[in-house]
């Protein structure tokens, strides 16, 4: 297709109409997921093979099929990758390998035959499901922020246009005043999806009112919370959605310069955003005099440097300025003096991508979703010990139980240790929610009330093989590592807490330690400038509140009930279950296992030699080795 530049809203509408009627729009599609997860599973090889097989078809057949292969962004079902979806039929294949491609092309595509062995099996019913939309994982979701992901080729602006892309921006710029746009966002009660849940409309309003020479809009793509990857998925899979949201926001507050700050660990997101920005600029959707309206706006990408604290707004802005990313006190808001000391609106990826949807469908539609104080939907990264791990977008207010046993498909392990124990939400600032609170609706306020947080939407499900004291230690180690060091209570207090909890894990804990932890926590909360310190004690406090018995088991009985803390466990062979295969013997690098490899024989583990690496337990096919 020749390059087009839209000089006006009419020109844009004309081109989109032409596009709708073009051969491009009527093509059948083979969608190969090439998100980070699927790539790790070998999606690149699948795509290459698919391309080869499709071009090898006879020319007449190719015209008849009118087929095109698209490399899409992350479908969010990474665990089952690489994924291949055939549209418009919606046939969904999981775990596709390059050797399967020939069958897909010759049998499914050419003959309409469904390949049973590549279909997804619903864990609840044991039935094979042929179509995308019928899979519980997708059927129980409501995708607003992620509605394009997996359906479009993120490298193709035309794909985005065919899904109604940039129409909201055109609507805003040509039929609404900046004030109208702002009022619509205020009415929608859109709250920031990055963690704080601050009202986006209020933020925009105060940046608009603030005095300044220039105004900036920033997209925070520094998704640092471990266990959250919805922003990665959105930036990789729907980069134009983020850009469109930012243009609308910039128009509303009167900004001409935007930045997207992407963390260093997401190279693919940077690549896709770069391409999208270049394409949008080429079409005249970014740059000077957009659509002939006289409005100028452009976006620059800033890459992060691998510092968790840079996800904090004031630290992020220092980082964009090329400085050390340390937070500052917030008595003056970033909306008044932010980036380069100018009024700045900073929202996260998921917040921005919601903006075009609100303009398209109206604030009333948006507020019809969700709970009283949390409107719309929220994407969660559901991971850990659940059957279906991946990205799940549901209406605000959906309960934890509905998420974990709905799209999540329930717990992964049916054994005694596989029972649900806790779900960790909100990353290092959040907490662990126990079974008794599973019917809690997920919105900003309810999760905070029980000592956790919505955060950016990480949701890590834990079963009885997870030690809660170890989890607390894990987050403390994370936070001590990531504390920028500016506020002493955060820097030193977290370190001390880490020391105490580590001692407990090693069986050296005392009962007084628990009081010490609580008192330290108070100091850290009061004495820290940013949320890293202010919410840093949450993981420890929430585990202490709901799983005190585990702390006591470590302290009083010198026992780790989950079998995780190395100093308190030993690996033992269950001689009745062992069949003498010898896999453990071969896997042990410490020569701690003795015995003869023969059917009917069994093995002994020498506790003194064993370094508790756990290799033997993972290779044992009969689950005869366990820590206790």
């Amino acid at each position, binding site marked *: 297709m020749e390059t087009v530049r839209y000089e006006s809203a009419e020109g844009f509408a004309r081109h989109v109409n032409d596009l709708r009627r073009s051969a491009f729009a009527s093509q059948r599609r083979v969608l190969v997921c090439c998100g980070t*997860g699927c790539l790790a599973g070998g999606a690149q090889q699948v795509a290459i093979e698919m391309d080869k097989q499709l071009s090898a078809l006879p020319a007449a057949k190719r015209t008849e099929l009118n087929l095109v292969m698209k490399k899409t962004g992350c479908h969010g079902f990474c665990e089952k990758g690489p994924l291949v979806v055939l549209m418009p039929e919606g046939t969904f294949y999981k775990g596709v390998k390059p050797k399967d491609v020939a069958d897909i092309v010759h049998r499914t595509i050419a003959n309409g035959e469904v390949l049973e062995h590549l279909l997804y099996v619903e864990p609840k019913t044991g039935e094979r499901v042929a179509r995308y939309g019928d899979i519980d994982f997708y059927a129980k979701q409501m995708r607003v922020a992620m509605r394009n992901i997996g359906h479009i080729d993120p490298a193709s602006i035309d794909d985005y246009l065919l899904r109604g892309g940039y129409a909201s921006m055109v609507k805003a710029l040509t039929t609404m005043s900046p004030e109208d746009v702002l009022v619509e966002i205020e009415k929608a009660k859109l709250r920031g999806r990055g963690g704080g849940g601050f009202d986006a409309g209020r933020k925009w309003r105060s940046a608009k009112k603030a005095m300044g020479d220039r105004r900036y809009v920033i997209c925070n793509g520094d998704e640092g919370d*471990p266990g959250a990857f919805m922003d990665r998925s959105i930036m990789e899979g729907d980069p134009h959605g983020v850009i469109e949201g930012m243009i609308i926001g910039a128009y509303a507050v009167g900004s001409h310069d935007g930045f997207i700050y992407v963390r260093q660990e997401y190279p693919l997101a940077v690549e896709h955003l770069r391409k999208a920005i270049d394409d949008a600029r080429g079409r005249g959707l970014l740059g000077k005099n957009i659509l002939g309206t006289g409005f100028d706006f452009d976006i620059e990408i800033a890459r992060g440097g691998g510092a968790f604290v840079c996800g904090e707004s004031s630290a992020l802005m220092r980082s964009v300025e*090329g400085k050390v990313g340390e937070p500052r006190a917030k008595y003056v808001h970033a909306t008044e003096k932010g980036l380069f000391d100018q009024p700045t609106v900073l929202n996260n990826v998921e917040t921005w991508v919601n903006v075009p949807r609100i303009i398209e469908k109206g604030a009333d539609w948006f507020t019809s979703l969700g709970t009283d104080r949390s409107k719309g939907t929220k994407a969660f990264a559901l991971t850990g010990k659940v059957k279906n791990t991946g990205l799940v977008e549901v209406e605000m207010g959906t309960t934890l139980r509905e998420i974990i046993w709905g799209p999540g498909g329930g717990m992964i392990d049916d054994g005694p240790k596989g029972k649900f124990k806790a779900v960790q939400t909100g990353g290092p600032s959040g907490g662990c929610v126990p079974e008794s609170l599973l019917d809690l609706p997920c919105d900003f306020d309810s999760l905070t009330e029980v000592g956790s947080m919505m955060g950016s939407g990480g949701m890590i499900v834990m079963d009885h093989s997870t030690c809660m004291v170890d989890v607390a230690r894990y987050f403390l180690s994370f936070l001590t590592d990531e504390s920028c060091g500016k506020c002493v209570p955060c820097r030193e207090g977290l370190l001390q807490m880490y020391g105490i909890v580590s001692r407990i894990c090693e069986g050296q804990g005392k009962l007084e330690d628990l009081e010490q932890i609580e008192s330290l926590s108070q100091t850290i909360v009061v004495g820290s400038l940013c949320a890293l310190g202010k919410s840093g004690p949450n993981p420890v406090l929430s585990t202490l509140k709901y799983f005190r018995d585990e702390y006591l088991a470590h302290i009083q009985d010198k026992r780790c009930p989950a079998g995780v803390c190395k100093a308190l466990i030993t690996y033992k062979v269950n001689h009745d279950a062992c069949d003498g295969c010898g896999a453990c013997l071969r896997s042990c690098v410490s020569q701690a296992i003795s015995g003869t490899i023969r059917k009917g024989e069994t093995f002994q583990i020498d506790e003194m030699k064993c370094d508790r690496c756990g290799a033997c337990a993972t290779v044992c096919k009969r689950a005869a080795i366990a820590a206790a």
Partner: protein
Amino acid sequence: MNDVDLAPTNEILSKYPADARHLVSVLQDIQLAYRYLPRQALEKVAETLGVPLAKVFGVATFYKAFTLTPRGKRVLRVCTGTACHIRGAPLLLTELQKRLNIKPGETTEDLEFSLEVVNCVGACALAPVVVVNDTAHGNLTVSRVRRLLSTKEKASSSNQEEEN
């Protein structure tokens, strides 16, 4: 150490306006080009962007993406995100430390391997994950992670092969 070729540094610097605000971006490109930040390059950057050398070092040591010592040919980054943690990442890390005889942040003497930890690579569904250079390997176990240290060809294909 004295014979660092500054041509890549100069080329990188020529792509950015001489403004302190581009310091982080410039350092990122230099890190990519050399796989570390050579002192001479930092001096050049300080001079060109008009930032004191101490400030440049401040930034270079603040961000985890930067290293001041050369890194190995294969950088193994063990994801220690929460999802990876509860699915056994600490076991993988101990195993790699033991095998390579280095700690996270260090490089083997033959400059073959560097070991690093990273807080989350956003591939939680495949936990636990180790990223070797730019390739993510998911669903690892202690015995499978050992294979990442064998020959290059094997390392890149060992991943999902035996998954099903």
